[in-house]
């Protein structure tokens, strides 16, 4: 089914760089942000334009970035650095401020390098490793308050509660819409694919948030109008759940391979994907309230948590696998992304009987065939298992 709203989103995205250029001429400021805990609501409420930055999948840019960092840093960090070095990306070249939170400390290093080598105005939001403790919350509240004050200075405006309330409402609605889209892509008669939802999410990070919300609502209406019943014999499919390191826009290597081999991605718990939209409920429209809500949502794997049994990230993973009726997990880890790489074996243990495949990779193409062989065997195994189950 061709969804016309998807074309509208694509068109809006194509126009966005020119639109930003105009807005900047009118005095608006663009804040490029990166990581997991930047409270975008506050940026938006201050009248600034938030743009999520960072792309993956380009080995050439990785090399450009590596001139300023080392090969022992993850490829995503290297590529983003490459993007800043080249300044050809239509969004990177329009940034007035770069805001990065320190959930992943490699991204904190990235902020330092961007500031030093490429002369960008930057701001860091500290994130506690002990995020589940009272003192961790207290620290983060103060950090968000400090972050807000710095943004106020940058914006030349004070944060008004009514504006923050308005922003929170818009972002809540966006999160709800994304959850709805995820539910639809996971259906047997899915009107759109996981890849399409992923593209919609990525587009949204660059678009005006209100426009984006309207487009999401339009897309959902269009989907609901055209939902059809499953008819005929269902083909046996391998429903794959993606977990592990981030898969940013542009990094399609693993997704391509899975789909080319007949696998169907039905869900993820990536911080660049679905997790970002889960369990974030701001009940108090203040910087402290925003801080608490961000810290209490599904934790990021870069924040260590020392008790396995009560780990919210793993609980969410198990829940999502069940929710999306996934047959197996492809656990994607980027080289030197220690946060997720070190957890691979443990995640496999925790998931027990759920088929599990770890793919440890970079953005270069040299391992494509090796990955293809492993994914092919994994998908075949899942399908065979389901075929046998149907026969029995």
């Amino acid at each position, binding site marked *: 089914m061709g969804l016309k709203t998807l074309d509208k989103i694509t068109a809006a995205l194509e126009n966005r760089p020119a639109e930003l250029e105009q807005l900047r001429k009118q005095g608006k400021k663009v804040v490029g942000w990166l990581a997991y805990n930047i409270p975008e609501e506050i940026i938006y409420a201050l009248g600034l334009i938030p743009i999520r930055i960072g792309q993956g999948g380009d080995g050439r840019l990785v090399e450009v970035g590596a001139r300023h960092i080392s090969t022992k840093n993850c490829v995503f960090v290297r590529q983003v650095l490459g993007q800043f070095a080249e300044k050809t990306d239509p969004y990177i070249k329009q940034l007035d401020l770069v805001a990065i939170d320190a959930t992943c*400390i490699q991204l904190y290093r990235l902020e330092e390098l961007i500031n030093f080598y490429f002369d960008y105005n930057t701001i860091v939001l500290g994130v506690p490793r002990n995020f589940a403790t009272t003192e961790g919350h207290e620290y983060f509240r103060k950090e968000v308050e400090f972050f807000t004050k710095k943004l106020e200075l940058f914006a030349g405006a004070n944060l008004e509660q009514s504006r923050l309330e308005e922003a929170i409402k818009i972002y809540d609605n966006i999160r709800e819409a994304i959850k709805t889209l995820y539910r639809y892509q996971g259906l047997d008669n899915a009107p759109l694919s996981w890849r399409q939802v992923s593209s919609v999410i990525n587009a949204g990070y660059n678009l005006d948030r209100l426009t984006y919300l309207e487009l999401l609502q339009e897309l959902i209406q269009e989907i609901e109008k055209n939902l059809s019943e499953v008819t005929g014999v269902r083909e046996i499919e391998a429903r794959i759940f993606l977990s592990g390191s981030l898969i940013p826009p542009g990094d399609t290597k693993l997704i391509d391979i899975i789909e080319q081999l007949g696998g169907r991605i039905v869900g993820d718990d990536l911080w660049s994907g679905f997790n970002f939209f889960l369990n974030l409920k701001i009940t108090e429209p203040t910087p402290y309230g925003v801080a608490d809500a961000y810290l209490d949502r599904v934790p990021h794997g870069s924040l260590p948590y020392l008790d396995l049994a009560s780990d919210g990230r793993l609980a969410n993973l198990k829940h999502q696998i069940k929710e999306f009726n996934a047959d197996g997990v492809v656990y994607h880890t980027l080289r030197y992304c220690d946060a997720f790489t070190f957890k691979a074996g443990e995640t496999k243990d925790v998931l027990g009987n759920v088929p599990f495949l770890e793919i440890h990779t970079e953005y270069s193409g040299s391992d494509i065939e090796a990955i293809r062989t492993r994914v092919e065997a994994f998908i075949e195994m899942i399908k065979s298992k389901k075929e046998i189950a149907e026969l029995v």
Partner: protein
Amino acid sequence: MAITAPFSYPESIKEKFIATPGLKFKDGSTVSSAEIWEFMTKEAPRRFPYAFDAGANNMGRFSDDVNFLSGIKRGYLTLTLKDRIMKEHAAGTPTVLVQGGQAMDAYYAAGGLPVRPGLVMQWARNMEEGLSLRQSETLGLNILESGRRKISIDACNQIAAHAAIDNKVVPIDLIAPFLCLRCSDMSFLVETHRNREHDIPRYLVDYPVDHENKPWAAEYIATELRELISKIAALSGRIITDEVIFDEIKLENRGRRIATEIADLWWGAENPPTNSTDFFGIAFLANDFVGDPVAAVDLLEQSKLEIEERVRNNVKGFGVPDNAKRLYICGSCVGPNAHHAQTAGAIFVGRDDSWSCISVPVEEEGDPYLNIAKSMLAYPYEQRTEKRAEWTAEQVKRSRADGVIFMYQWGCNYQSGVARMISDIVKEKAGVVTTFVEVGELGRSEATEQSTNRVEAFIEMV
């Protein structure tokens, strides 16, 4: 590996050595220099032959400067570490895995015995005695690889310490390091222990980034330090008061002060009064305390007197090349081989990692938890990279270094991430040549040619 005669201390220095003071320990005991001599010339070569391997590739090789008598005592503290830990542990002192390069005051004050990953590995290797260098390294590598098999090949060598704990090679009672900007692997490796058969309690003392002018950062750490100290005290049975903590702070501050004075003496001398091995080995005592702050401070005092005398008499340390090129070393966990560097005509004059926490004393009045927290946050090494580099450039100037080598090890995401930036800033601010080198051979003495070649080429260029 070349077979060479093992290193030994000549009988000709025995009389002079045993006339020097022994060492005092925190349990109130003392060891005479005669006993130290006996240990270092008879017992240790038998029990730990690897430590006496005289091959140039042996990174842990003792100093050739046998007339620097404090150096022999430094070796004694290193080689008795296992016995001292095991004895204390058997008597109920909790052993705690900690991070390197951080203040140890809180751990010792609470009655714990802090051991950083490097010492855990040394301890683990020493659990089997009578090993040659190759055998000892193989044992260490087996432990390391068992860790990598369980966790990841991307892990830095620190994983060996965690594997030694997992494999029950050494008894650790609490895993509770400080986090900081030096290390990418520690927090994630501590987390891996939650999925192991052992049930060793765990705790992390968080270290906020970008903390300058943020009082809430120190308050956050101080609250965590209270939790840390109560956890250790619960294991040690020690009753903790502010006075107990301040006693420890005062002792360790004394060590820091003496180490700083030694560095100033050394830097101000016309001729380097010791070789690189002795200089680093002694100064490092105020950073690590090798399981016993009382003994470490005692040895620092003795070392200072010896160095003062050498400086007064313009004595050049044995092994220091004529017109030696002075190199300042940056980075965590690894460093160039001092023996190779000396052969190539260079001497090491400082190290940002070790010097960082030595340079910041803890305030001795007020709230001891907050004081330690503030001290930790003031470590130059843990500042934003630009600030850290500026401090390093000052150190380079003060130590009259001719060049800087930034070394980081395989798998280290955080030091590698800033190696280029620090090198660039120091080059500009201090006006010296800089280079950065990645090494993968930490813990072994074979296949070291790549890094040796780079370091030697740099020295030639300097």
